[in-house]
């Protein structure tokens, strides 16, 4: 199994043991290893852990990121305004 799966769990110190049912191979012809995606694909399948500055709203900041990368949509993980 590809080691990136362990990296995901390691990211937030998640611990839940893996149960392997059988051996299986993946064909490199299809898809991408998440940490080896071409940069253009990564841009459309990524999360930025942004340090929001004081001043603009969460929505404004998210909009700027959208424009910087020329994306159709972005979404943020919970606004910081109402808190």
């Amino acid at each position, binding site marked *: 199994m590809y080691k990136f799966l362990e990296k995901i769990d390691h990211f937030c110190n998640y611990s839940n043991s893996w149960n392997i049912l059988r051996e299986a191979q993946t064909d490199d012809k299809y898809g991408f290893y998440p940490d080896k995606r071409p940069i253009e694909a990564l841009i459309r399948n990524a999360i930025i852990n942004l340090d929001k500055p004081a001043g603009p709203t969460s929505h404004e900041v998210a909009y700027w990121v959208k424009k910087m990368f020329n994306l159709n949509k972005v979404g943020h993980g*919970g606004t910081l305004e109402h808190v």
Partner: protein
Amino acid sequence: MRGDPKVTGVLPIGMENATKLMSLISKAGKEYVCIMQVHCDYEMNELKEIVNQFIGEIYQRPPVRSSVKRRTRKRRVYSIDILETEGRLVLMKIASEPGTYMRKICHDIGILLGCGAHMRELRRTRSGIFTEDSNLVTLHEISEALYMYKHCKDESDLRRVLLPMEFAVCGIPKVVIDDDAVNAITYGATLNAPGVVAFQNFKRGENVAIMTLKGEIVAIGESNINSNEIQNMKKGIVVKPKRVLMERDVYPKGWKKNEKD
């Protein structure tokens, strides 16, 4: 509330396709550090006692300027720690459920103190699994990384800024499936037992992430069984996908082999 008081900190942003994963993060717990200004001199013991009353289940009515209906609601505060005080300024660390108003907590502490208090500054230190330590970047760093990529053909900085969206499912159980089982799911099929190669433990009705052998996320769904049943299953639904992340036809069709029950 723009700019006043100053609110900064962890704001994970999902780009394009990763937008679909952001509800996992916005629905997860939050952690803040906050500066409260008390409007009179106070006894430290009294303040501590009052602050402790806000730990556990509390009732809050959203402030006048808020984006939700102003209906009193219950929220759980996991912890409040007074980190430091300087005169009437109090630095606190608060962990809570999403949708808890820090501004309101400061205000309400002031009411119990008898003289009032308000929030001066707020910084979010955690949103779900994203913390200040998990690759937090500023707008400037993004802009510089993008410049290096666009004008200097150097994508190394950009790769440090962009986290593969798969990290968003860190906190939930995952199942790994066969290459042949991938495409059917992108067409809306359920994940059935024969497609599962490996799994982490989960209960029925839990959120589970469906991953390829390469570690790409295919979909997020709700489990239909307890994971300990998989070993003895020859067929049947393991996960019902709710959100499909992968595009169609990235992997070859495997219908005939896998999808006939």
